[in-house]
């Protein structure tokens, strides 16, 4: 191997009460892609924040190109060419691409007056070298997530970075956008940049990385060469045991129709959606990000109103004005963003779980706290949720445990239909597997289940039947042995990918909101 660019030695980092990193050592070589893996809350992001100057470690040392460094701010790290591309995108939507690329380091004269022309030209050069098809003067807020990510990568170019850290960059990218990203990453690697790549997606890890370092509970488990290991080994390092069976598929027989959707249409989002779901069945809804699946789900659930079409639920035609109506009729939706739509993070598990069904946990409008605690304890055990108690704010929990609360919240009222939108996004393999088990169990109990997922192995692994969606339309239905990756890809790629990932104006504001509320 080549030269070591960045070394972390025996790093320890604690937050009040939590040891996020304990005596972790780690190094990055020039010209490698180094994967960092581990369960949710293992300390990956924390380690990277330490390396990029966001956090100051409690103990340990960092060497950059052989020199001991002491970063007091991200600026120090950036000045040495170390850049972090965040899990949550870290851009200013109101500023232009150029202003974002050089955020905080704009070329100015002595008096702080911007040199706009120089800024424009430098950015253009950086964008060109990445093959970006947008200009430096576009407002970043109007770009798709993938393009926004390109803006972040352009920073790497612009600052001539020698270490780049990607923290779950593909969590919200489409397949083709991911490919674009990988091309960019490979280019960086060729230029001798040291790259850290964090992801929960195994296929990506094996596709792009050279070495893998695994963390568990803040402890280093070891570093291996990617080509020397397989998925099972990595999984074992991550969770400390073997995963017996990764996917679980519902085994019961499908019963009566629970939901039927006819010609559902919402201008600009989706059109002519027709399908049925039966009791005891898991229906997968596969599509690339932006296909419009979430919107369909939200429309069925009454979050938005369709322009036309019918929804027949449990034998009667329904027209929900709001989720309240849907819930009362026995429908549940586990929304795609647990932070924005799924939970009240500042509050405890007890109130979060019972929120949609308060009438079940109260008498004449007065809360029945005892009953609430019962249900809380029940699901805490059932789903093996790690929490200190019913009032612990959910913001303190790891992503996987938070996700289990979203599930508990929607299961506790015994719905007839449950729609799960990306139920395992950003969730580690261990938790993923247990969520899959839960999903299968639901169907076996006789619920009708719809699972929306952008992860092909997941949809195929858990569904009895799969609908493929692209560009706001259903483009295929598969069941049994037809549920193969190849078939799904073919189905969804019949529509031009580029147009499928263009956000509509309405969604732009939505994306905006999502980012704005990120802490």
């Amino acid at each position: 191997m080549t030269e070591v660019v960045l070394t972390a030695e025996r790093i320890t980092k604690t937050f009040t009460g939590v040891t996020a990193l304990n005596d972790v050592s780690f190094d990055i070589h020039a010209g490698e892609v180094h994967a960092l893996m581990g369960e949710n809350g293992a300390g990956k992001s924390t380690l990277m924040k330490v390396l990029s100057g966001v956090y100051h470690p409690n103990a340990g040392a960092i060497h950059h190109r052989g020199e001991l460094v002491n970063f007091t701010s991200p600026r120090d790290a950036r000045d040495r060419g170390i850049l972090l591309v965040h899990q949550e995108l870290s851009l200013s939507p109101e500023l232009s691409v150029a202003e974002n690329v050089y955020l905080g380091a704009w070329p100015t004269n002595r008096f702080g007056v911007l040199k706009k022309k120089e800024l424009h030209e430098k950015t253009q050069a950086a964008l060109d070298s990445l093959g970006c098809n947008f200009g430096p003067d576009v407002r970043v807020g109007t770009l798709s997530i993938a393009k926004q990510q390109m803006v972040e990568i352009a920073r790497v170019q612009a600052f001539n970075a020698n270490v780049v850290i990607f923290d779950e960059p593909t969590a919200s990218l489409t397949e083709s956008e991911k490919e674009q990203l990988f091309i960019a990453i490979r280019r960086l690697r060729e230029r001798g940049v040291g790259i850290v790549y964090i992801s929960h997606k195994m296929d990506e890890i094996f596709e792009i990385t050279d070495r893998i370092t695994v963390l568990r509970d803040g402890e280093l488990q070891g570093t291996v060469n990617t080509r020397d290991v397989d998925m099972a080994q990595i999984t074992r390092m991550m969770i400390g045991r073997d995963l017996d069976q990764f996917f679980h598929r519902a085994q019961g027989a499908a019963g009566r129709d629970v939901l039927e959707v006819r010609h559902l249409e919402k201008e600009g989002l989706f059109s002519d959606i027709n399908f049925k779901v039966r009791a005891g069945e898991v229906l997968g809804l596969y599509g690339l990000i932006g296909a419009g699946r979430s919107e369909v789900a939200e429309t069925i659930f009454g979050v938005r109103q369709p322009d036309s079409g019918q929804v027949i639920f449990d034998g009667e035609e329904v027209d929900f004005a709001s989720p309240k109506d849907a819930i009362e009729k026995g429908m549940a939706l586990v929304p795609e963003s647990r932070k924005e739509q799924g939970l009240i993070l500042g509050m405890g598990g007890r109130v979060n779980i019972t929120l949609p069904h308060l009438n079940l946990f109260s008498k004449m409008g007065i809360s029945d706290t005892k009953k609430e605690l019962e249900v809380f304890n029940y699901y805490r055990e059932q789903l093996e949720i790690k929490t200190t108690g019913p009032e612990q704010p959910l913001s303190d929990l790891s992503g996987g445990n938070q996700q289990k609360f979203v599930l508990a919240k929607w299961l506790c009222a015994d719905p007839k239909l449950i729609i799960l939108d990306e139920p395992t996004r950003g969730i580690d393999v261990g938790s993923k597997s247990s969520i899959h088990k839960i999903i299968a169990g639901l169907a076996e109990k006789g619920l009708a289940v719809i699972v929306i997922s952008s992860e092909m192995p997941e949809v195929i692994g858990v569904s009895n039947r799969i609908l493929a969606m692209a560009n706001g339309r259903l483009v295929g239905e598969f069941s049994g042995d037809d549920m193969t990756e190849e078939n799904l890809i073919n189905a969804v790629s019949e529509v031009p990918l580029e147009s499928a990932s263009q956000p509509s104006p309405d969604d732009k504001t939505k994306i905006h909101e999502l980012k704005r509320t990120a802490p």
Partner: protein
Amino acid sequence: MLLAEQHIWVFLGLSLLLFSLASPYFLTLNNMSNLLTQAAFIGLLAIGMTLVMINGEIDLSVGATLALACALAVGLQSSIGVWPAIFVALCSGAVMGLINGTLLALSGMHSFIITLGALIGIRGIVFIYTGESALMVEDFSYTEIVEVYLGPVSLTALIFLGFAAFFQWMLTCTKHGREAFAVGDNAKSAHEAGIRVKRHKVINFVLCGTLAAIAGVLLSMRLGTAEPNAGKIWELWAIIAVVLGGTRLQGGWGSVWKTVGGVLTLAVLRNGLSLLNTPNYIELMVMGAVLVLALVIDKVLGFGHSK
């Protein structure tokens, strides 16, 4: 869309038109000159408020800061001379801004709380300093300092417009200006990009306090007197003007230029209604209604920036 983004000017144009038709005294040179001068005080507060609000913060203490500067400018001139008194007055504004900003940076409290406290407290200081009665200049020639006109435009109005132009330029063409948006838009990413977010905000609070003090000094020159109650609830008018101008309350977007539009619109409404002999209560109701209307229009036009 252009219309939507520029609707404050449409608003201003309409009110100008309306009052010109309604009152023969409205569109006179003399009245326009008065109007500009009258607008300048809220205007100076609103410029500072715009900077702070682009950062996603708010400064409720500007009215009290104005009163303090006004009191110091008047109260100190007999002992240390006019210009030193003015200097001290301006410094007081900077210091109040510094206190607000520093408390914000150190404590991590929301500026609404910090400056609400300051609004009450600074007013207390003013009352203590003035002994709760109005201070008066000894030499009324002090009030003549501002009686300089460039054509129909008074010195006070010129100072206001000058600062507006300067800060608009600063926002669009300087590093500090771009930082202002970055900080308000996404403070975390700004911080991680190495922008000194706290220091940046402190600077803007200092600027805001100083502009309030400038307004205070100008007011002392206008009135020749410092009332302990001067500038009471002017912070609200300033905020209203800024919002009318379309600056987003959550930060990240705004323009001093359009704030000027907001300030002028308010001034036209007040002046016009007063020339029309409108009873006070109508004036108050109209002001309230206009404000809500502005929000509704904003919403209906779906002007993406001001959510």
